């Protein structure tokens, strides 16, 4: 793992993280995102650089408005940086067309949202299968396997409004995994859950990471942040710290 020191934003000093062995899946170089709000310009991300290796579990933390979600959206190819370069699996995303970005997102990234983002008219199984419709693949058995993995086999024919918050989030996680992504991006995955359900989701994310999936979560939840092996802290759009969590 590498990051650019927030204290020296313009320097090229790169600090290596101890234990780096696996190949790099995400490489951010000077990512900057500026939004225009009328005449005002908001610098949501300011020259953020880091790399993430395959198999890492990274928590992005910071106060509200620090740029966490913006960064997550850039990493998921949902938005383009104003400047800087992002490499996903070694491929530069900066100049890719919308179709190419969609393809990359579909093949590489799985998204989990705070508000679950399930389609209310579809059943649990159908929600999980939805990404396959867009990738023109048929893997119904894999959906059943995933639902078993997240403990929702008994809920497969239910609609989202019949589920608890934790079940909805686990459905969303199963949906994020259906295309076998290498990177799971989760935006406040426990933000709408009670403690018990939050812990269940956390445990699931840890299990997935243990199976080799790279997980990046944006969170305010200190337990979730602490359970990640690495923590990136943003403040006012700048990366202020990037450190490995020390586990007991």
């Amino acid at each position, binding site marked *: 793992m590498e990051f650019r020191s927030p204290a020296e934003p313009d320097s090229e000093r790169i600090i290596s993280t101890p234990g780096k062995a696996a190949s790099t899946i995400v490489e951010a170089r000077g990512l900057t995102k500026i939004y225009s709000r009328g005449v005002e310009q908001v610098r949501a991300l300011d020259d953020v650089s880091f790399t993430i290796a395959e198999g890492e579990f990274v928590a992005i933390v910071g106060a509200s408005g620090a740029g966490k979600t913006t960064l997550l959206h850039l990493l998921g190819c949902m*938005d383009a940086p104003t400047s800087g370069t992002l490499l996903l699996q070694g491929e530069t995303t900066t100049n890719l067309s919308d*179709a190419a970005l*969609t393809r990359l997102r579909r093949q590489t990234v799985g998204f989990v*949202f705070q508000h679950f*983002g399930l*389609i*209310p*008219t579809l059943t649990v199984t159908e929600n999980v*299968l939805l990404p396959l419709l*867009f990738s023109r693949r048929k893997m119904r058995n894999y959906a059943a396997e995933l639902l078993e993995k997240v403990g929702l086999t008994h809920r497969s024919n239910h609609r989202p409004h019949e589920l608890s918050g934790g079940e909805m989030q686990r459905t969303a996680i199963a949906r994020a995994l259906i295309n076998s992504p290498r990177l799971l991006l989760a935006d406040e995955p426990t933000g709408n859950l009670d403690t018990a359900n939050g812990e269940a989701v956390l445990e699931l994310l840890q299990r997935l990471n243990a199976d080799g999936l790279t997980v990046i979560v944006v969170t305010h939840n200190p337990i979730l942040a602490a359970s990640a092996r690495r923590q990136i802290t943003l403040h006012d759009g700048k990366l202020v710290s990037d450190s490995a969590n020390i586990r007991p």
Partner: protein
Amino acid sequence: MTWLRLVLQNGARRKLRTLSTAVGIALAVGALFSLVSFQRGYQIGMRDELDKLGAHILIAPKGCPYDAASIALHGASWPCYLKADYLQRVKSTEGVAEASPMLMNALTDQVSGSQSVYVGANLDLLGVKRAWKIDGAFPLADTDCLIGSSIAKAMHLQKGQQFDLPCLKGETGSVSGILQSTQGADDTFIYVTLARAQKLFGRPEELTHILVRLTDPDKLDSVVAALRGCEAGMDMNVVPLTHLFRTIQRMVNSTRLLLLCILAVGTLVAGAGVGNTVLMAVTERTREIGIMRAIGASAKDIFLLVWLETLTICALGWGIGIVGAMLGAHGIEVWLRARLPFAPTGTLVHPELGTALACLIGALLLGSVAGLLPAWRAAHFSPIEAMRVGSGV
């Protein structure tokens, strides 16, 4: 998980809105289907009527040719009469193969209100009505009657039976023959000899009309000109039936054109309604569309999804419209029959599978155009902006 399932589920979210939008399309489709079916039925009916009539020319007293044709074909009382001696002049005209003198009168029963149509004719009629099949004989004796199949059935008449002539108190007749079903107005007439009809209705030496069959139908124009130019031509209305039907058809077609123009406006309004509804649905689901983009849907996928939703609403509207038109066909027929100056006796509304399929193609084309704007709009949402909608960010 299939596209169709996703599309149907989206449509089912707001059932009432989807249904009311589809009803707009249904009205346009139903009206178009009914109009085309009517036009087709009218054409077939007219051709049928002409075939059954057997005559090429109708000679009637001076007046409206359409009224004359309608009375002669469907049976009613005539307001004026021809002199019987015109018949010889007609028969002697070159190109005339058969000329059948007729005296028609319709009587209404004061108690039941039912109508009986009497037609006085002689054997010349069989030269015109060549398709007729008679169980028995054509009336030759004074009391002989040839009974139309519907009347025979209604009055339970048998060949050789004596019976009281309906609406003619004290008059009796003998069934000399029963006319086999023609599927036309002839089935409802009672045929007597011309002489008896003239006596019964107090019209000696008078006729209501003459049916003329030509040796060569291609010489219609020259025979019509000859009849109009003969001595009695000034007192006769010489109506070439083919031309008459063609004129009526032309009139109906012009009405159809006008209706089609109105219908086109209605269809455009329905199309705009569909477009607007889908646009509204897209706006409501902006965040959901953003999520779909996030989980792998391309702009093309979103375009396809919204476009298919529009087509589905139009296909639903088509289905409702066709079913509605089929169910309402009888009512439409009754309504039209009461308003048309001349309507053939057969079915007026003639629905065909080809018409229904053409309407489906039309509805889908309309949906294709109506769905372009909402589909384009949905496909061009920025995923990130779309996901922010409703999230308070």
